[in-house]
């Protein structure tokens, strides 16, 4: 349990798939948007976030990819997501997200 610490490590799991109109965006515009989103991710990494990778899951899920991140606190995860929203990411990708705190010693048994 970590309720008495101020910023426990927070997992942030992000599922995504392109929205239909993403396929109509010109390649140059796609590249510019992707570059913006990459900058947001670089900024998160510089602030202590870690992404273990983005994995293809379309074969078993409604979404196409899942990315697994850890952030120094859920507020940092929120700020990363907000930066992506402001960079129009959620306009072009449908998503679902989870945040989670590390479990010490498993569940309640």
């Amino acid at each position, binding site marked *: *349990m*970590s*309720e008495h610490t*101020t*910023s*426990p490590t*927070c997992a*942030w799991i992000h*599922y995504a798939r392109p*929205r*239909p*109109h993403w396929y109509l965006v010109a390649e140059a515009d796609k590249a510019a948007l992707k570059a913006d989103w990459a900058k947001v991710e670089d900024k998160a990494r510089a602030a202590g976030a870690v992404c273990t990778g983005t994995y293809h899951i379309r074969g078993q899920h409604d979404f196409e990819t899942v990315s697994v991140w850890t952030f120094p*606190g*859920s*507020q940092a*995860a*929120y700020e990363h*997501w*907000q930066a992506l*929203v*402001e960079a129009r990411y*959620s*306009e*072009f990708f*449908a*998503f*679902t*997200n*989870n*945040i*989670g*705190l590390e*479990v010490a010693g498993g*569940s*309640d048994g």
Partner: protein
Amino acid sequence: MSALTGDTDVFTAERGGDARACIVFTGTRQDVLPGIYTETHRQAILEVLKELENEGWLLNQRCVFDPYADATPMALDTGFTHDHDIAGVFEAPSLDAAVAGTVRLEQAGWSRAFRTEWMIGLREFAPVFGKGAHEDHGWAFMALWEWNDQWCEATREERDEYDLECDIAFKGDLDHEVNISGRMRLDIAHGWHHLGYWEIAGPDVADSAIRGHETVADFKFTTSRHIVGRVLPLSSLIAPKHDDRKAANV
């Protein structure tokens, strides 16, 4: 924090101080056999709820409208129309506190009683009062919703026009003496983008108000799930279904 969309006639961004976290939940009973969940667990959950209240949590949405209202933890009894049995909204001082608090509740015994979806986010808009409707209503309506692909594809002008159309429906809600406890933003940790929580006089009010939203084509740009329930003390909603004394035989 910045909202996903701007202010309208009805809604304004929450002002003053840091944004508070919200915890939206739906729970389905799973204590199908004696011994899974007992009065001892219920007492442990009530103890955690008391601790959370002392740590600055708000466990009764009535207090959003009236800070001097009874702060007894409350939730919606939803089993009569939904596959989950209870639903509700808490507020916590921070996102980390929100997540940790749900774990504490689960570990106290909540996870034995309920299969729960905890949706954690931040308050986004300030509460709005219906016309002449400042008292407790007894019932509540929860709307989980997301912007759909069509909204995402729409231009800024189309979205602004849509917001103003929806404001007509929200003004209609206020005419139904509905109190709206602001708007909660859930997209950081869920597929639903938002929650709206209304105090209503009964299920018929929700139906009538939603017809107003259909009239202005609210659902053109959103997908939503609606939950209606009677507001009851959480202490009774989490009562064990089985007598402890029979558990020894299991």
